[in-house]
């Protein structure tokens, strides 16, 4: 399969990267591990004029601890992060999510930043240009109707494993763009709109993910068909103490759902959440089944992490 034509740049600093982005009038994309971007370009879903490879920017690859915060550079690979002892000790939800992401080879290439900012997915969207042209446009590709539900709504699925874990840990992001720098809670990056799932400002580069430097209890449950490679058809992350836990659910719809409450509130909370969740036939498993697994898997997870 062939890539569309584009120019390649490898800046050494963030400033250089932003300058290149500006020079191409925004018709540019950032490249990290490429495990999400390259397939999408081959499918003709993204055809930028310029590809800006961030992997030459050393400062994005560091993990630092400062003043009660752990700061993870966006270009740290998933594999590296999973081998960082502090992650396993303090953030078991994240640790498990890292192990569950894709397969070992792709974990060595995929970055935490890229994993968070992966585009949403759908059986009708992640197809070749030939396929999509023949089928006709859908809402995510600029058309009027979703092929699955017929309405003008995009319920493509956000399928990062690490993001729900990070949400359960109250992670925040540091972004640097043309308009400057900002730090926001991870939660705020999601638009809930499958067409354009992230509220990124012009040229913004995700530089760093920050987590409070404290030991947490937690875990991650993933619903997938095979034991490796597959994206989550449901991904449930849980972090917290016995008193208060935070649960984040990914894999269904364009935005992860976050819930907070006490342990004993989980069954009813998840039941309600499941009822409110919209799942459609845009994955390989039945949507009703996926919804129904929300309370099942979240309760299992809670039991595993906190005991009965």
């Amino acid at each position, binding site marked *: 399969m062939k890539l569309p034509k584009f120019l390649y740049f490898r800046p050494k600093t963030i400033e250089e990267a932003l300058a290149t982005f500006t020079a191409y009038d925004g018709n540019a994309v950032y490249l990290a591990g490429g495990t999400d971007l390259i397939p999408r370009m081959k499918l003709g879903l993204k055809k930028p004029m310029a590809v800006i490879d961030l992997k030459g920017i050393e400062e994005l690859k560091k993990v630092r601890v400062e003043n009660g915060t752990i700061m993870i550079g966006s270009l740290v690979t998933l594999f590296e992060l999973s081998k960082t002892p502090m992650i396993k000790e303090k953030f078991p939800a994240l640790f498990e999510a890292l192990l569950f992401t894709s397969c070992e080879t792709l974990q060595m290439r995929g970055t935490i930043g890229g994993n968070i900012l992966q585009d949403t997915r759908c059986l009708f969207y992640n197809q070749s240009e030939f396929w999509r*042209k023949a089928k006709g446009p859908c809402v995510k590709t600029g058309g009027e109707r979703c092929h699955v539900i017929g309405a003008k709504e995009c319920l493509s699925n956000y399928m990062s494993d690490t993001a729900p874990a990070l949400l359960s840990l109250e992670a925040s992001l540091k972004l640097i763009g043309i308009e400057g720098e900002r730090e926001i809670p991870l939660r705020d990056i999601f638009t809930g709109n499958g067409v354009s799932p992230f509220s990124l400002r012009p040229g913004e580069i995700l530089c760093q993910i920050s987590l409070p430097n404290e030991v947490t209890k937690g875990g991650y449950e993933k619903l997938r068909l095979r034991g490796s490679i597959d994206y989550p058809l449901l991904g449930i992350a849980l972090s917290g103490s016995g008193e208060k836990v935070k649960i984040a659910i990914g894999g269904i719809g364009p935005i992860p759902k976050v819930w907070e409450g006490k342990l004993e509130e989980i069954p009813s909370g998840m039941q309600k959440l499941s009822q409110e969740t919209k799942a459609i036939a845009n994955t390989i498993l039945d949507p009703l089944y996926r919804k129904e697994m929300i309370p099942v898997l979240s309760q299992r997870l809670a039991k595993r992490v906190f005991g009965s």
Partner: protein
Amino acid sequence: MKQHEEYKIVGKSVPRRDSIGKVTGQAIYTNDIKLPRMLYAKVLRSPLPHAKILNIDVSRALRLPGVKAVITGFDTKGVKWGVFKYTQDHPLLPRDKVRYVGEDVAAVAAIDEEIAMEALELIKVDYEPLPAVFDPIEAMQEGAPLIHEEFPRNINIHVHIEVGEVEKAFKESYLVMENTFRAAGEAYAMMEPYAVVAHYHEGFLDIWCPNAGPHVRAKALSNLLGLPLNRVRVRHVNIGGAFGGRSEVQPADLIAALLSIKTERPVKLSLTREENAMCTRQVHDVIATIKTGVKKDGTILAKEFKVIYDGGAYSSTGPIATSVPYYVYEETYRIPNVRYDGYRVFTNKGIRGMYGCHGRAFLVGNEVQLDMIAEALGMDPVEIRLKNGLKVGEETITKSKIISSGLHEALQKVSEKANWREKRLSIIKGKGKGMGIGCIGMMCGFPMGFRSGSSCYLKFNDDGQVTLITGIVDNGQGNESLAIQIASEVLGIPMEDINLVNADTEITNLDQGAYSQAATFVSGNAVKRACEDARRQILAIASDKLGVPAEELDLRNRMVVWKKDPSKNIPISWVVREAFFMGRPIVGFGSYMPKIDFEREWVKRPYGQLAGTFSYGACVAEVEVDKETGRIYLPRFYAAHDCGYPINPMAVEGQIEGSIVQAGVAAILEKNLWHKGFLLNPDLLEYKVPLACDIPDMEPIIVKSYDPEGPFGAKEGGLTIRMSAYSAVGTALYQALGIPITELPFTPDVVWKALRKVNEEAEK
């Protein structure tokens, strides 16, 4: 043929000959071929599932610099191809209409792929969309869109087999059960995406492509192109898997050939994974309704079947696909009264072909139902199979004689290995754990007219090494190494002394191809006979020289030796040179034609000896079901395969293990998913080929039934497991859940929904 005796090398696990090239990256597959001045082709495909072609304008594409040729159906001879005379419906490049999304409509050859792809954008096709139909039941209704004029109600093939008096037998039955099972069609998902290199030069067309039958391919191309058969040379190449999906001529073959003929340059056409999935071959979706009547003691009295095969847009193997699941079943069990109606139906989807695991709805359905019957009668599932299983000397209901059978031994061995009695007794039905058995018979070769046989030649060079020339085809299962191993045994020279030239239609003689499990049984036999012929010649000359009768001589380690006193010997190379001197070089020839009833016809006359022999196999699967999530775990799998005699036990094990995964694990994972004529998972991410983490602990068991016809008693290398592993999962699941799951694959949502339905009904 020696029974129960040690051979020199046959029957021993040896590394396969082709493995070195494959582990070093030196083995050449079609897409690795690069020829001087080679052009690259791309295909323009139909975006519509059903439409008339009104006009194709290629003029702009032709003008693009770098484009050397553009073709459409109007560049062909308009010949329609078909496996059978009565299924000649495939123009390969259509002129009148398109019948599935992805059908080849036009093609370009250019100096590089990028330009070829650009040129496709410049071809303008005017279509008149027609109503399309995607469901086989709908397609058979009056008034449904007609996909082929000559096949009313879109019924491509109707196989009707009726023996005995089914209705009477049902009336006399103690117990009658009827169930319907469905299965979504699978993808072959062979690792190598399809590719063709065609080179027309000096009046000859050379073709390289991954194919299971070069002679059949050459003949098809000869007809399609109007070229004499000797001018079409299908060449040898390494093949990255076929599993039944590469037996027939492809549009890609015709396209590459035409482009090469037009440009007089080599042309390479490489398909993407998506094209491989959508536009070559897929596997049938099947709906099987099975009715069985039994006596109180479990003896099967009658079976009635109605099976619908969703065939996609063209006939492909047509009657073969419509019959084989039934035949493997009748080869297994004694059925005194039967009525089988198999319908292969056209729909506007990709073309469905034969598959190594074909017919899982039918076979799982039969086996699960048999367990349900056994349970009602208080019988053990192994017991009921032993009771009804056919034995040596018996005939199938359509009159195929069974000359060797390891069915009973396979059932006994696999259940012993799996500790069936003990373990199964300890399992309480419906609690989520289950152990199930499935078994099946398998034909080795079937009628292909005069093309059903194979022959082999061999020559010696004067150092005593051999070149073996045979049409045997290797899709990756090890047939090339098998031929060499057989030759090594008979000629008494090490495998490394034997060169192999195979699957090249200019050099090798007619061979039936590597499908229908014929390679070992037919091609292997021809190799053995050719070697025996050469051996006789060698022994005759040596006998003269040594002054010892030929019967007292043997060939061992490159020497002719006197069995009574091996120190009395001469090198084979000496004999070879002597033969050259005498003007009668050692040249071996052998051929084998399986003893098949050639009057037998799939539709018109479905009785008579179907195959040279039958192999048998049985699997036991252990399953654990998480009833809350519907997820199935397969901790352990045992599979006993009666291969007659294992030429290379390690290779047979490899086939058994691969089959357990491709059929057994696939039963809980694999399906092609469709939406109105569009394949939703034409890739290797959303089509779930099992990974290493998904496999059970596997115990392959080789059963030897010493077939009287097979070379060294050998039959075939593992197909019985490909067609019984899913049955073992189905039957195990029945025990684990207490209800039959009648929809395949058994993905968690399917299981969960079935359990919920049971709970809801229980609550009412």
